[in-house]
């Protein structure tokens, strides 16, 4: 019996090669950092760990239940894992990466590990541990600029995070009490019960906090503004996408017909998130703060994908997540470059077209993608999302989905205002004194290639479409 179980655990471990490689790599990186404090060593070490772990990645066509169903990995999770790694490795090229030590990259790796487990957890305790792992590293990494303002942002993040994780734990205890199991796939509630409603709401709090959905979005702007830009790039993408997968799994434990209020509630908070994000961004002048509000609005749109069943929802989700990741990678890369030259405000870009027209063009491509206009993949992503919402609305004739669709479309117009702020200032305003800004050829090449990805996926989306075909739904 014991031997059998042990055998099973060992067999299952092979499915966690990637996670294991990351954990071993992270530990080694920390040790190497103690011996050699050179920045270059830390950067190369991080890149080696991430790229090395990618070699252990595999694609699971079938859903695998591991360790007595406490962990699950299906097609969506296995692809997203690779996406996270392939995404994060680029932060070693960010402008401030020159100051980074191995501790910093250790924390980034912890976020990655936490997010991957968050995404594949099927057990309430594993979920909690994964949530806390990403949260704690998040709190610490926010302080890495070592300035008073970033401490403030870190404390804010910590306080909000602490409260919401306490509430989540409370929710878990109720769910466990009512359902008698900690394994999500074994829980299913189809009888209305007020306690359960409280438990469910409390549990959602912690997850919504991670994906910065209204009303748990408050930490986002100051954290994004004050945290190091390379960390923000990871924070804004990896835990968020992982959080949405988890959210999808968690709401699957209830019968939506019995708990009729859940879907309207999600629609209301989703719509409110879009509204808060877009309206909040209108007044911002700090580049990173503006992007933070934009990211909140994107969360609202990503939430819409979870309300659509089956293949349509999975397609919309994967496309949106993928393009969101690429857009944020380039956007924060550009932000970090300009930040290193002292440009942190949208007005700081004034008149730069005279010296850097090509950089202006790249910024335009990225911003147009964020708004969702052709010919960028940002449009394709929004197009799939809106199509999926239409289709879902038609087949269910659910007016909530129509509302969501309308708000989503209207938000595009508002997003035009704030995403165009930088190109606007870049091209149309003129500056009294032009700042001397020059970037090296390598960053030029990298920024160009990354932004061209956004155009490339618009004109030839086959690659992503071929991946999407493999998903039949977001989760198992």
């Amino acid at each position, binding site marked *: 019996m014991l031997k059998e179980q042990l055998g099973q655990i060992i067999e299952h471990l092979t499915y966690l090669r990637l996670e294991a490689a990351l954990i071993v790599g992270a530990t080694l990186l920390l040790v190497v950092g103690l011996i050699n404090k050179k920045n270059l060593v830390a950067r190369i070490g991080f890149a080696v760990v991430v790229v090395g772990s990618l070699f252990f990645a595999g694609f699971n066509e079938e859903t695998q239940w591991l360790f007595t169903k406490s962990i699950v990995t299906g097609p969506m999770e296995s692809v997203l894992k690779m996406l996270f790694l392939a995404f994060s490795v680029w932060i070693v090229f960010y402008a401030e990466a020159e100051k980074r030590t191995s501790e910093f990259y250790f924390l980034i790796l912890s976020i990655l590990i936490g997010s991957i487990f968050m995404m594949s957890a099927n057990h309430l305790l594993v979920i909690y541990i994964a949530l806390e792992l990403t949260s704690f590293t998040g709190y610490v990494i926010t302080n890495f600029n070592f300035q008073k303002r970033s401490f403030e942002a870190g404390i804010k993040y910590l306080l909000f995070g602490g409260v919401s994780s306490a509430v989540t734990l409370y929710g878990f205890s109720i769910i466990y009490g009512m359902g008698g199991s900690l394994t999500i796939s074994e829980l299913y509630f189809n009888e209305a019960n007020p306690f359960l409603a409280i438990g469910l709401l409390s549990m959602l709090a912690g997850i919504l906090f991670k994906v910065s959905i209204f009303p748990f979005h408050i930490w986002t702007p100051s954290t994004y503004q004050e945290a190091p830009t390379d960390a923000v790039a990871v924070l804004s993408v990896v835990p968020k996408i992982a959080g949405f997968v988890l959210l999808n799994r968690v709401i699957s434990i209830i019968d939506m017909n019995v708990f009729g209020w859940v879907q309207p509630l999600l629609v209301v908070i989703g719509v409110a998130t879009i509204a808060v994000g877009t309206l909040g961004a209108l007044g911002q002048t700090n580049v990173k703060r503006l992007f933070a509000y934009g990211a909140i609005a994107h969360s609202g749109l990503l939430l819409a994908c979870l309300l659509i069943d089956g293949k349509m929802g999975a*397609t919309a989700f994967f496309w949106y997540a993928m393009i969101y990741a690429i857009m944020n990678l380039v956007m924060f890369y550009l932000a970090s470059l300009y930040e290193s030259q002292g440009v942190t405000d949208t007005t700081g870009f004034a008149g730069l077209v005279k010296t850097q027209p090509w950089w202006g063009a790249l910024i*335009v491509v990225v911003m147009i993608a964020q708004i969702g206009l052709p010919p960028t993949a940002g449009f394709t992503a929004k197009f799939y999302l809106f199509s999926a919402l239409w289709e879902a609305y038609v087949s269910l004739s659910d007016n909530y989905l129509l509302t969501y669709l309308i708000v989503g479309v209207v938000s595009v*117009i508002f997003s035009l205002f704030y995403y165009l702020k930088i190109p606007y200032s870049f*091209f149309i305003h003129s500056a009294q004194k032009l700042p001397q800004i020059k970037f090296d050829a390598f960053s030029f090449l990298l920024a160009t290639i990354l932004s061209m990805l956004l155009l490339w996926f618009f004109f030839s989306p086959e690659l992503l479409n071929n991946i999407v075909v493999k998903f039949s739904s977001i989760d198992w």
Partner: protein
Amino acid sequence: MENHLLSLIVFIPLLFALGVFFIPKTQHLLIKVVTLVATLLQLVLSLKLFFDYDGSFKPSEWSEAFLFVEKADWIQLSLGNYGRFVIDYFVGVDGISMPLVVLSALLLVIGVISSWRLTEKVKGYFILYLTLSTSIVGCFVALDLFLFYVFFEFMLLPMFFLIGIWGGPRRAYASIKFFIYTLLGSLLILIVMIGLFISIEDSSRALKMADETGKIEIVHSFSLVKMMEDSYGAEAFLAPDSEVAFGGISLRYWAFILLMIGFAIKLPVVPVHTWLPDAHVEAPTAISVILAGILLKVGGYGFFRIAYGIFPDAAMEYAFPVACFGVLSIIYGGFAALAQNDLKRMIAYSSVSHMGFVMLGLATLTIEGISGALFQMISHGLISGALFLVVGVVYDRTHDRQIQNLSGLASKMPVYTFFTVVFFFASLGLPGFSGFVGELLTLIGGIGSEGINGLVPSWLGMLAVIGIIISAAYYLWALQRMFFGKFWAREESWEDKLNDVDRREWLMLLPLAVLVLLFGILPGIILDPIDNSVNFFVDNLLSRGQQFLIK
């Protein structure tokens, strides 16, 4: 070459834009020459299109109505039970789009000549200009709704920068206003587009694909031809027999309304026209020419091809309100033009007024009305383009456009006055000029519609005649104030600068003047080749519309 004529016309400017990209930015002359060559090449090819176009062909269904068709696979996505989404590169022209392609190519050449003196940020300007050319022509030839939408949206960005960077003092305000208005319009179109492609099923394509892949899937297509052939799937909610309604109006009618608003913003129709005067006043001359001459026509073309072509029943149902908005634009635009002191603003409002005729002619769904609307688009393209060039001549010399700041220009600049008079008269609809033909045909349609198909009451057409009288008033008044009487200029220094038109300006104005006269005297040059297409368009729309309305 024969088979790829349309692709060449569309993508030649983009290729040259790539070429311009590699020219050092100090080589102003070279950049301008390359741009000119690109647009000339585009013009030559579209003239070839014009002469090769077989107008004697009588189509009997939409699938054969388009000539010079090119089709290639672009994006395909299989979604299991939901079927397969198919987006094609699919272009072609019929009698409705062909003249607009030629018009665009002509005005784009004139736009380059008009920007010849540009000295500031030349390279960026011409790259954007060439990109704009591609997207404009692409709009007119696209037969795949997705492709159309991509070209349609992509016009916004170059235009935004062209107004925003090279525009006048309030350029920042004008460019963002332009962007927001048109983006709002195109988002409405986007919603309908998504609804349409979910409803459309291409069964013949599905069979063909089943042969290749071995499994039968529903194929959702963006093909405009399929949409005009009403190849809706079973229980599609935008199909004519669908009973899905929202707020008491069936979704099909909603779709039509959204499309109409979307394209009305572009056309523009009162009350969503307010971006136009601002954009025109701030835009550099060449861009004003493109904006008034071609971009507005994209809105009109959208009415024809998309809103009317796909939803004929809604078009018949809403003929009266559509015609009312047309007449409202004609009269409101006219009165607004009368009140302007800025010459460019006056012409901008006159554009609003003249585009009202397009809407009126379209609403009647008579052969006269539709050919009139189409003719009016071509004629207005030439005339308004020329009028903005005329304003540009004064503005280049004095950097002022106020009507009251100048008078008696006739004695100082006789040739210039001659051109101005020609274009003013052409625009106010004097017989012998192209403007007359377009307005006459639309009015015949507008007044006659009641007797032919009963869609638009006669009194609306009669009301529209007032518009012509108002336009006579503002043009003649402006002529009297600015050109006649004793020479006087507000600033003394202007007197030396106000020379008569130079060779470059001759080159721009003369062809337009000749064409305006030619089309006025021999309207058959345009009307003959498009005749069969228009007849087919009207017959097809009326028969489909009636059929759907009975259901």
